């Protein structure tokens, strides 16, 4: 059973059927595909790009690297669908363009719409899901339920203020002073959208804005104006590093008391409007009562590297909720799992994993001669979109015990921790200094050794130098 018809549910279901799991039912409480993109982002513009034209053909594996919004299909007609809906006013799609791309992909996935999952129980064969359309029984559940339930931080009085999800259209904030609790995506998205309307905007949260990280973040599109206005002492935008002690409602609006975190002292701020842009939680319903352990202040289900609940085997997660599975997170680097470009690959890997471990459907694995292993892995390091987008999370493995065989794309953390025969795995990772670096993991006689290959200013990881270094490790 797959629950959800957003990009995570669609990709998982599509890939499960392609992997041979034909007994797969997809339920959705929505009336149409698209998940959160049927509604959000509030101000209707994504931050992840799709380049309609690229140095390679749309529909190829290489093109996926230029298109961070389409789901990944096995046939050209199912590939690169978002570009066809873009009017090219921006290099990032509008919400409705993204939704149209997902709807086109959903034509290849059978979904039972308007069938809402209500509760969950275990039985001797697996799980029983109570839905608005009766009970469904299954061996394995994949919950692709998004991170869409508004979550308000436990700040006294904040519960009286509307959440990001209840934000009104920008013109309704005309001439008002607005206090936004939060300094992440949704907070800056609102601030940006309100700049032409509000008289004053204050954003506040305890953690300082990390300018070094921000400069390289796709969020820079959203961050730039309000934050730059604040930094330059511009008019009417303030970005505060402060822990908010309480929010009080009064006749004129709100009064907010906050304590500095990068400065000494306290401050009182008056505002006409307060918006809690404090994030979302996964709508997990009764899963915690079933024993599903949560993480991130109770907002997300904790998962293994293969996105299985750490505490209830047989329950898996897909879509942006997969971001709670951190992987090795070397040097603190996070993967792109929280967005479509990353989790589309995770969902495909998950589908193959479920097909193999729960349904005995082994994939056909390409065999290599010894001479082919190094060129194949170099090609992956140079061009594999899975490795480039899911840096440090997904790895390409070649088994080298006896016959050389493709081990597929797998979560690096699982590969590193698994006892197995001889193998070579390659990844693209961020080094401690932030350099994009190819890394090789060689397992020989049960022992794993990690080797970083040279970096390259143009990210050419299939040079003679790389070939020689990899050949020395593989031989």
């Amino acid at each position: 059973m797959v629950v959800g018809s957003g990009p995570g549910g669609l990709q998982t279901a599509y890939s499960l059927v392609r992997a041979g799991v034909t007994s797969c039912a997809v339920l959705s409480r929505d009336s149409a595909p698209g998940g959160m993109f049927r509604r959000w982002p509030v101000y209707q513009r994504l931050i992840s790009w799709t380049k309609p034209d690229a140095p390679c053909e749309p529909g190829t594996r290489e093109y996926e690297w230029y298109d961070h919004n389409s789901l990944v299909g096995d046939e050209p007609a199912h590939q690169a669908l978002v570009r066809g809906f873009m009017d090219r006013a921006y290099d990032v799609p509008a919400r409705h363009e993204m939704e149209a791309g997902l709807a086109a992909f959903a034509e290849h996935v059978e979904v039972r719409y308007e069938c809402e999952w209500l509760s969950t129980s275990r039985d001797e064969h697996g799980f029983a899901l109570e839905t608005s359309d009766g009970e469904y029984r299954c061996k394995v559940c994949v919950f692709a339920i998004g991170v869409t339930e508004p979550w308000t931080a436990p700040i006294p009085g904040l519960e009286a203020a509307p959440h990001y999800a209840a934000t009104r259209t920008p013109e309704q904030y005309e001439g008002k002073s607005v206090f936004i609790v939060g300094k992440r995506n949704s907070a800056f998205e609102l601030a940006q959208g309100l700049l032409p309307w509000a008289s004053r905007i204050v954003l506040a949260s305890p953690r300082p804005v990390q300018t070094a990280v921000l400069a390289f973040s796709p969020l820079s599109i959203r961050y730039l104006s309000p934050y730059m206005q604040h930094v330059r002492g511009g008019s009417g935008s303030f970005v505060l590093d402060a822990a908010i002690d309480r929010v009080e409602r009064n006749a004129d609006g709100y009064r907010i008391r906050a304590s500095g975190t990068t400065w000494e002292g306290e401050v009182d701020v008056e505002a006409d409007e307060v918006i809690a842009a404090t994030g979302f939680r996964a709508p997990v319903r009764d899963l915690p009562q079933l024993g599903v352990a949560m993480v991130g202040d109770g907002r997300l289900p904790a998962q293994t590297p293969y996105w299985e609940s750490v505490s209830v085997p047989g329950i898996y997660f897909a879509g942006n909720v997969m971001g709670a599975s951190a992987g090795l997170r070397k040097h603190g680097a996070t993967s792109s799992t929280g967005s479509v470009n990353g989790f589309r690959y995770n969902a495909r890997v998950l589908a193959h994993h479920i097909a193999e471990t729960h349904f005995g459907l082994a994939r056909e694995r390409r065999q290599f001669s010894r001479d082919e292993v190094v060129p194949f892995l170099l090609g992956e390091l140079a061009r594999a979109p899975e490795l480039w987008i899911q840096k440090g999370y997904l790895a390409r493995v070649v088994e080298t015990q006896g016959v050389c065989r493709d081990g597929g794309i797998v979560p690096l953390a699982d590969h590193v921790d698994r006892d197995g025969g001889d193998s070579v795995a390659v990844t693209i990772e961020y080094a401690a200094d932030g350099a994009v670096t190819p890394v090789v993991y060689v397992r020989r006689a049960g022992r794993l050794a990690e080797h970083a290959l040279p970096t390259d200013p143009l990210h050419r990881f299939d040079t003679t130098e790389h070939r020689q270094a990899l050949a020395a490790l593989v031989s």
Partner: protein
Amino acid sequence: MTAPAENYVDTLSRLALFADLPHPQLEVLAHSFDEEVFAAGQRVIRQDVTGGGFYVILDGEAHVVIDGNERARLHRGDFFGEISLLTDSRPTADVIAATVLRCLIIPDTELKPFLLKQPSVMYRMLQIEARRLRAANAWDG
């Protein structure tokens, strides 16, 4: 283990390591560094693999394993991973979750700036390291 009843900031405030942090700084800690939950049997730190962080146990237990042999057991409030970060070397042990294990994680590159900004945490950490050293010497003797 069920979902924790208290929130993340409250959990952090009860640990000896962070006992001297005022509330706003606890909020910064909670907003800056994520918690992660591991399945029983899952590895948290891997012998000879780079890039690990500094871990503080919020709930659950872990084993310290060297070359397959269990050397120590860690509990709520204990921390690990700092030796390889402070000495800039690869971990010399695996740390494996013995139960479902909940940890706060500070990445390797952020430990030093964090400790320099929060000397009270550094002092508490030093005290605990001193006790560990004394215990290790007592065993050796």
